[in-house]
């Protein structure tokens, strides 16, 4: 995993540094004086050879020194971590809503496989997960926030708002994300349950004389959930791709907006750190997913000796 992290950092560094033109110029703009640009480059260290910059960058990361923003000079950690917190709140809300609904819909569809209600769930999921998050966000904004007056257009939550007050701000953007993830999770849950229902052990359970509810609860669900858990963990990782669009539409000052700004201003330290955080979050979530699966499936658990 460390190796993967290192590769990630390298990829990010490469991406960000294959820049035509120099950083100092980009930051100060085309009208700045040459000496000022040169001095800025010296301060920032961007006039040194690339390889040296790379090693410095890696060293800094390892020591958790995230540097300062090119744009504002404030430490990157002061910018990025609070933004991360805000995005996390939004994401958490989205997942808290999505996961139970999607899994339940998947189970519902699986039990009615082949029937109309099943096809409705599958196709609805297909459609909703096809739509980019920013599209859903725009539509929700237009329909609910503007026309109907529910929720807020600018989602930034003022300090000190009550829990339910916060919901008023966060619900619409969270819903935009829910739409996207519902499809994948519901479909994975559905196929897991179908496979489990068709298994021999489900047959054994039925033949023992258990009711279909007992079969489902005691035997099917536990075995059906592994692929769904994996999908959920992957969605957590890809979250940050979609959240950028939503944050832009709702003007939410989360990590996505921060990254977007940094991209525009070529603020490399901010960018690098943000992207790395996203990568780390993905890895952590897959790790947690693996742990959870091992917990549920003793074969994986016990073989690891």
């Amino acid at each position, binding site marked *: 995993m460390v*190796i*993967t992290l290192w*590769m*990630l950092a390298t*990829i*990010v560094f490469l*991406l*960000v540094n*294959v*820049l035509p033109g120099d950083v100092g110029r980009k930051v100060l703009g085309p009208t700045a004086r040459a000496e000022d640009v040169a001095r800025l480059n010296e301060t920032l260290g961007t006039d040194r050879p690339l390889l040296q910059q790379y090693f410095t960058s890696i060293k800094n990361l390892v020591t958790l020194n995230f540097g300062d923003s090119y744009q504002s000079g404030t430490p990157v950690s002061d910018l990025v971590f609070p933004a991360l917190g805000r995005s996390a709140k939004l994401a958490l809300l989205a997942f808290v809503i999505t996961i139970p609904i999607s899994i339940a819909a998947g189970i519902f569809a699986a039990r009615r496989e082949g029937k109309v209600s099943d096809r409705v769930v599958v*196709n609805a999921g*297909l*459609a909703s997960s*096809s*739509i*980019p*998050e*920013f*599209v859903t966000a*725009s*539509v929700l*904004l*237009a329909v609910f*926030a*503007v*026309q109907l007056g529910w929720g807020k*257009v600018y989602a930034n939550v003022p300090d000190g708002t009550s829990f339910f007050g916060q919901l008023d701000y966060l619900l619409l953007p969270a819903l935009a994300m829910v739409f996207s993830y519902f499809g994948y999770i519901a479909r994975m849950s559905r196929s897991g349950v179908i496979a489990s229902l068709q298994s021999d052990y489900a047959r054994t359970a039925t033949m023992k004389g258990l009711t279909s509810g007992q079969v489902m609860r005691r035997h099917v669900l536990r075995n059906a959930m592994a692929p769904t858990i994996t999908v959920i963990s992957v969605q957590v*990782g*890809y*979250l*940050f*791709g*979609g959240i*950028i*669009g939503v944050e*832009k*539409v709702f003007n939410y000052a989360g990590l996505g907006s921060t*990254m*977007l700004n940094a*991209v*525009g201003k*070529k603020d490399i330290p901010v*960018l690098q750190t943000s*992207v790395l955080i*996203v*990568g780390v979050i*993905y*890895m952590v979530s897959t790790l947690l997913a693996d742990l959870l699966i091992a917990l549920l499936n003793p074969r994986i658990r016990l073989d690891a000796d």
Partner: protein
Amino acid sequence: MTAIDDTPESNDPVPAPDAAPDVDSREAAAAGRKAARHETLRLLMKRPAFIGGVLIVMIWVVCALFTNLIAPYNPLDYRTGLNMSPSWSHPFGTDKGGRDVLSRVIAGARDVLKIAPIAAMLGVLGGVILGLLMGYLRGAFDTVASRVVEAFLSLPVVLLALLAITTLGNSNWVVIGVVATLFTPVVARTVRSAVLAERELDYVTSARLRGESSLFVMYREILPNISGPIIVELTVRIGYAVFTVATLSFLGAGPPPPSPDWGAQVSDNYNSIVAGYWWSTFFPAAAIASLVIAVNLIADSIERVVKS
């Protein structure tokens, strides 16, 4: 007296459908393959999802090809008022720059339909090659490549593409190249698992025991058997490509204004929603949604037919 002799079992459940009895059996085989393709197409045509998807895609293709003929106004031109609501002369209204939204929506199909399919195909090509090598050769190459693939996969495509495009510029070919490169690891992973499964089958062992080269085994033995999943993956990737390209242009990494690209239109106009001007955002957004859904419906239908 009746004797039992050692005649093998008679015949096969599925005779070659289009062959006349006196035709050379090799022609019958070729006819059989053609018939199999027709069969697949026939099964697809039975699915309303597939037909619906194809229809919608066709509409947009027509829009892209014949923009100048269909669009009522010049998409780049200021016409009458700013932000006029939909009316008979402007069915989709006008946007904040006074341009006819309907024309812009029609014109917007062009870029997306140029970029997305090519990016997807290149990505699948790269992914198939990489996936074959990883899955068949295994060993050190697979271990290293898997780590690299994992690293790429831990970041959302949109994010990486955003970074890359901002540094490399946003011409069409850059977008195609970046998206294709980012799709390669994803496709490689799917192809790799399919190859791993095939590799265990005895016909591969048999080929290797014959002394066939690795290239032969990968390309001629294994590849034909995984073509189903690859085709499904291709159609799914096209859907993702449309999705990604639209998102990128929304985030500012698409073709520069005043290009009528759909994502850019949403990006330009979403601020107007607050003021009540919803149409300039809604219609391009709906266009994006319709195209992605249509492609995904096609992909889903193909997947179901291939699986059966």
